[in-house]
């Protein structure tokens, strides 16, 4: 059955013992798009991705990935999907070339040698192909992993926090590659904690405590949050921050660089509180909330911080 949805899952539930990691997630993702998967640690992002590509059995729910049933046709999904794990999971005691060769052989690619040569060339690692992959820096490891999981030209790419711990320049390069792959027709679902990365996605899905909280384009998510945001700048913001955080019902108070954002839905309350706490060395202006303001508010509404640091 062919479908124009790359991922079409409904009511996904995953329980580990008595703990529910994912609780009724629906995703309908069209082919060819780049979607961002956001949410705090332990919100169920990785678990959802693993269920989609057949690495975990679903406790309840159903769906298809690339037109294949996620419970019964995991093998077919795996053949047409590239999955990049959160932790580097290629072989450190094999060279860069040997890693790529293994993957190319496993997927039975024709012209294995040429395919690997091309991948190395594109990766810019041709001259280091005989180095052990474990000796690469974090950013290079991620690029090697991306090259390896895309070597069989999958239809769907699942990236689990691919840029965690990678320097800003390498992150930018990595995202340029993701967009190149997307232009070439790949569907990409990428989980991330970085807002600038989320803003480069066609749509974002926000999970918390295993529930999908919101989904849409960046602008839609910000609009849906229905927030009013004030931005305070000046030397006095640090003293103010503590005070503002203790005001009941005000909303969220968070730093952006050296500026302080106060976001909430009760505009009168915010104005009056800011007026009461006015200080000559702080200037306030109303700004359009950004994605992070929206997420901080979403997280606060989703209930206490239930992260577990795995």
């Amino acid at each position, binding site marked *: 059955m062919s479908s124009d949805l790359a991922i079409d899952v409904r009511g996904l539930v995953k329980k580990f013992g008595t703990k529910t990691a994912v609780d009724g997630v629906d995703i309908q993702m069209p082919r060819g798009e780049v979607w961002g998967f956001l949410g705090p640690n332990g919100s169920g992002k990785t678990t959802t991705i693993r269920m989609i590509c057949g*690495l975990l059995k679903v406790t309840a729910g159903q769906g298809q990935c690339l037109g294949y049933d996620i419970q019964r046709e995991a093998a077919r999904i795996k053949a047409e999907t590239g999955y990049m794990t959160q932790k580097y999971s290629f072989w450190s005691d094999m060279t860069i070339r040997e890693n790529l060769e293994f993957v190319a052989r*496993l997927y039975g690619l024709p012209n294995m040698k040429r395919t690997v040569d091309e991948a190395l060339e594109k990766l810019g690692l041709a001259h280091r192909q005989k180095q052990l992959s474990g000796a690469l820096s974090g950013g290079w490891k991620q690029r090697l992993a991306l090259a390896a999981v895309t070597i069989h030209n999958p239809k769907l790419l699942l990236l689990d926090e691919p840029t965690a711990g990678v320097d800003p320049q390498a992150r930018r390069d990595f995202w340029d590659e993701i967009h190149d792959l997307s232009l070439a027709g790949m569907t990409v679902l990428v989980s991330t904690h970085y807002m600038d990365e989320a803003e480069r996605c066609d749509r974002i899905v926000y999970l918390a405590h295993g529930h999908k909280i919101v989904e849409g384009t960046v602008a839609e998510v910000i609009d849906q949050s229905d927030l009013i945001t004030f931005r305070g700048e000046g030397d006095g913001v640090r003293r103010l921050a503590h005070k503002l955080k203790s005001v009941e019902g005000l909303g969220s108070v968070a730093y952006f660089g050296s500026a302080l954002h106060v976001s909430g839905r009760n505009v009168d309350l915010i104005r009056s509180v800011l007026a009461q706490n006015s200080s000559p060395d702080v200037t306030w202006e109303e700004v359009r909330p950004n994605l992070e303001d929206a997420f901080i508010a979403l997280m606060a509404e989703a209930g206490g911080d239930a992260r577990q640091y795995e």
Partner: protein
Amino acid sequence: MTSLLNSLRRIWAVFMKETVQMRRDRLTFAMLGGIPIVQLVLFGFAINMNPRHLPAALIVEEQTPIVRTLVSALTSSEYYDFVMLESDPRKSGDLLARGEVSFVVTIPAGFTRDLVRGDQPQILIEADASDPAASSNAVGQAQAILTLALRHDLKGPLANLNAGPAPFDLVVHPMYNPEAKTSYNIVPGLLGVILTMTLVMITAMAMTRETEQGTLENLLAMPVLPGEMMLGKILPYVLVGAIETGVILMAARVIFDVPFVGQVWILLLGVTIFVIANLALGFTFSTIARTQMQAMQLTFFFFLPSILLSGFMFPFRGMPDWAQNIGEVLPLTHFLRIVRGVMLKDATLAQLQVPMLALCAFTAAVMVIALFRYRRTLD
């Protein structure tokens, strides 16, 4: 004084951390308790350096009171368990080659008549001397047992036979290893022991290494089936096993001068099945153990009875039944019968059918368990 206290506090901190981690690794904890118990039981009860109740075949060509006395003396000595009565002397070689019996005792026709005449008739004991430790006591005691038994029967007119040399002539044929060289038995056995130790360990690491290095998730996300994974992981080590076999057989020939009287292809067939059996077992361990450390412990836990109960170090027939039953499950037991059978006894494939099939059955069973235990998902 304070620095000593600080030092003690730090020792205490490390002590507590180790205790917590030791308790968390259940399998290690079980091994710490289990291995001493297993060793105690095996060394204490199973191993017998002076084996009795060895299976023997009896060929008697006449039935007289004196013959019956001799047979019952051998039986009541507890060294000889006559498990079969044969009338055809030509079968004795086959019985020994198969390893079904350790001895064939032959009392020829006319024995009693010749004895009475004082002609010193012969009693023949053909012993499987491929394992000198197993056979030497029983053979060594035979003369005394038989002489003592006859002494009661030789009364009245026959009493004069009791004087002087024994009235019969005990002829012992130590088959396969006439000089009773221990190395003839040990060196072929070592082939099995070395293959067991190295090959089980090497594949026991196979999956646990992927788990520990975090590469398992990557492998599972690729379209490779459990059976494909198992074969791919096992096959490189078949080559390792082949090289080890070559080296050991060469050493047996050149250094230890062990004879090789049988057919090479039968041994190679046995080695191949045995190597695959061990590799498959190691792979099964690696689907059970969660860490490489645990895989090592499982390997050791398997290796211990393999060495003690297979008949490698101690005579198999000398062990109590329960220990022999455990031994029958171990692939090394069957491989030892094959390797000793071929190298020392020139056994044919038909004679080695049982151990060959036993190895195949073991391999199949272990592979089924491995595929059953193999994690297809990260659950």
